[in-house]
């Protein structure tokens, strides 16, 4: 059976599934329950200086739902740990002693002054924790005080704080990045520059979940007013995947270890991030939505998948998808696909038809001999994948590559080989094809 033991920055854990710094890791009680359930590690809820911050007493979470009220995403306006520093440190020490085989990384956020970091680092070191994660991501509350994403959005600060930490502790340093930035590669480069051992991403995304139309105020509200909170959960996974990939394939940060976070709910989500170069993953929303037990399936599912694919260890597949992420201009323009509708699987809802007919290329017919029947008109199909995207039946519509002959839409022969935009005659900046 596959070995899923993980070693990230030298920190060992029995599996690559850590709980991200958040309510699930806010205290001993939760973390012990998580370890009992099988989680490989935790990043403890972010610690700050005493006196502890205060949280609002109104609602902290908002949610967005899909069909069947399935949770697609949360947002929150919770701050860092509101418990005394000493209490957190004592609990961390105790749990690490009781669970030596599990990873415990401590998340930190103190003011952007060297002295503040210098003060707290030895206290954490004393707990026996395996490493620290610098919270440069919190998009609400702390950022207004010049911490959290207010630091993460300025690469120079990121580099500076990372450097202080590397100077003042022997523990591995992970820099947690905010997605509330135009190009995530810049803070990642800064973290590396400052000597950070790894980056973790993404933190939550600035968001307002809904407007209560009776109150004319954000929902949820505190006494009639709401504020932007951090968005997370399955809905943010695509954004997180892209940001992880950007860092993994950036020549300047290539090889920098990544701990991936963002909408990870199943073993499959985790594998996707790891295929994009993440050494391990962190989970928050999925655990908050379903409880700690989901890790059982994550562990099982990962092992079964690895066995099926004959991967013996995590390293065997980490990063395998990175070379296949490219920029648009390098996509092969000679690759021509046409939609195909599997008539046996088709339930005749007509969704593909109306989507293509109303909003795209009029490439699906809806009747044959007076009966409902949906078929692709190759002479119109641009292969855009819209029909397959809206089809309620999995694998009913597939995109089939043409391997020769003439594309009935363009009248052009389908040629083998590779040609991209950089050499295309319509490109004013084309370079000569070699």
């Amino acid at each position: 059976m596959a070995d899923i033991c993980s070693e990230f920055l030298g920190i060992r854990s029995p599996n690559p599934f850590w709980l991200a710094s958040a309510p699930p890791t806010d205290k001993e009680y939760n973390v012990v329950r998580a370890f009992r359930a099988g989680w490989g590690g935790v990043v403890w809820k972010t610690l700050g200086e005493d006196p502890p911050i205060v949280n609002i007493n109104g609602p902290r979470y908002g949610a967005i739902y899909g069909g069947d009220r399935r949770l697609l995403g949360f947002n929150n306006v919770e701050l860092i740990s509101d418990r005394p520093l000493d209490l957190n440190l004592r609990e961390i020490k105790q749990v690490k002693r009781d669970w030596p085989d599990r990873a415990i990384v401590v998340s930190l956020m103190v003011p952007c002054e060297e002295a503040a970091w210098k003060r707290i680092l030895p206290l954490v070191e004393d707990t026996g924790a395996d490493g620290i994660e610098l919270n440069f991501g919190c998009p609400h509350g702390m950022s207004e005080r010049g911490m959290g994403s207010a630091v993460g959005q300025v690469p120079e600060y990121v580099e500076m704080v990372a450097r202080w930490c590397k100077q003042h502790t022997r523990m591995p340093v992970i820099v947690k990045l905010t997605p509330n930035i135009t190009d995530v590669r810049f803070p990642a480069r800064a973290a590396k520059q400052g000597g950070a051992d790894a980056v973790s991403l993404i933190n939550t995304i600035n968001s307002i979940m809904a407007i209560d139309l009776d109150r004319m105020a954000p929902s949820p509200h505190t006494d009639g007013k709401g504020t932007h909170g951090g968005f997370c959960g399955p809905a943010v996974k695509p954004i997180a995947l892209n940001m992880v990939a950007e860092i993994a394939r950036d020549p300047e940060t290539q090889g920098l270890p990544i701990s991936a976070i963002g909408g990870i709910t199943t073993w499959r989500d985790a594998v996707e991030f790891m295929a994009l170069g993440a050494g391990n993953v962190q989970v928050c929303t999925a655990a908050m939505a379903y409880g700690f037990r989901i890790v059982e399936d994550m562990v099982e599912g990962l092992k079964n998948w690895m066995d099926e694919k004959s991967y013996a260890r995590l390293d065997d597949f980490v990063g395998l998808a990175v070379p296949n992420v490219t920029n648009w201009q390098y996509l092969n323009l000679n690759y021509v696909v046409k939609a195909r509708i599997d008539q046996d699987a088709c339930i005749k809802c007509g969704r593909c038809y109306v989507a293509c007919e109303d909003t795209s290329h009029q490439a699906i017919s809806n009747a044959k001999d007076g009966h409902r029947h949906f078929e692709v008109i190759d002479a119109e199909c641009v292969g855009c994948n819209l029909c397959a995207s809206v089809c309620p039946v999995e694998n009913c519509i597939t995109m089939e590559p043409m391997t020769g002959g003439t594309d009935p839409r363009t009248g052009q022969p389908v040629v083998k080989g590779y040609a991209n935009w950089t050499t295309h005659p319509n490109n004013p900046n084309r370079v000569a094809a070699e």
Partner: protein
Amino acid sequence: MSQKKANIAAGRLSAVEYADNFTDLHAPLDDHQALIEADRCYFCDGAPCTTACPTGIDIPMFIRQISTGNPKGAAATILRDNIMGGMCARVCPTETLCEEVCVRNDAENKPVKIGQLQRFATDKLFTAGAQIFSKGVDTGKRVAVVGGGPAGLSCAHALARQGHAVTVIEAHDKLGGLNEYGIASYKTVDNFAQHETDYILGVGGITVELGKRLGDDVTLGQLRSDYDAVFLGLGLGAVNALSLEGEDLSGVLDAVAYIAELRQAKDLAKLPVGRCIVVIGGGMTAIDIAVQTKRLGAEDVTLVYRRGREHMKASAYEQELAQTSGVRIKYSAKPVRLIGEGRHVRAVEFEYTQPSAKGERFVLEADMVFKAIGQKFVAGPVTGGNDVLELEDGRVAVDNSRRTSLPDVWAGGDCIAGGQDLTVAGVEDGKVAAAAIDRFLRGGAE
């Protein structure tokens, strides 16, 4: 067979049992259930369900409106095409209409519960008491609608919306037709038929004359001269006879009449019912009388149908409902004789019709025998005087616009030839006829 007195009694059950047995057959969906169910709709293009609905309700649209939190819009979508969308949601055999063709049958053998969602949306509107229709600008034209059943009320409502002055002439002392007197009581609880009727009349511009019968109190000729157009929604006034020895014995009853009595009963505990019941027939009426007598506390109810299961007019779903209610269904047997004891029926003798047992006979004991072998049209009022309507197969002949052989007379519902004998079909007839009458009154092309 032992000698015994017919066992017919009232009050066979406790008050709680009566209440349980005659409560809603399907509990209405609550908000949460409705949202979950609405999410199952794929919002099909050119949806098969809409095509299958005789009134062509835009089903994907109203379900989408439920899921977006717009139940009033959902109800309006329904009622615009089918003013009795509330009743139809309760009584339509959806398993052979909209739900039969739902693409979810192909996907996972389980259609979206369209009928239940339709009830959810319309109930919301009725509960809120919001009237969404109003009468049109007065055209000065007058139309007589004879019969206050689904066909007549649907026609009257549509005409009023167009601004015509409508008079509904109804022989009974209540409107609603079989909605009020025929539909099984567990399908339309809490006096829903009258609430719906009130909602329909709420459009304004409709005058109602109760207790007035075409043929007795007024003639078709009089109506034609007093009104600019006439619509007939007379339903079926008589039932088919068995034409067998013993049919005149007491205890041999017309199912439709007994159901009417049941529907009007103030206290079900006072309604006498036999211990052993035999029902003869194979349609909705047969199922309904069997199930309802069983629920009134009859011990043995046997429904006997002359042909095989697959020919039965009642759908597989209805047959199952009867069976799960404790009714025994015997297929392929026809009655040959009703056996009396004194003046009262005691048993029915049947003969098998399937080839394997042809000619073999059996006897079923009965305290009450219900005839449910079809209703028929009473043509007297429309064939008696100088104004004679053409008939077809014993019912009123109409064209596509539901116009009869007389140029200013339209007809719809059960009384016309070629119909489906369903509430929803009557509603559609009334709607189609109203559109044609409106064109006629405005002098437009037919």
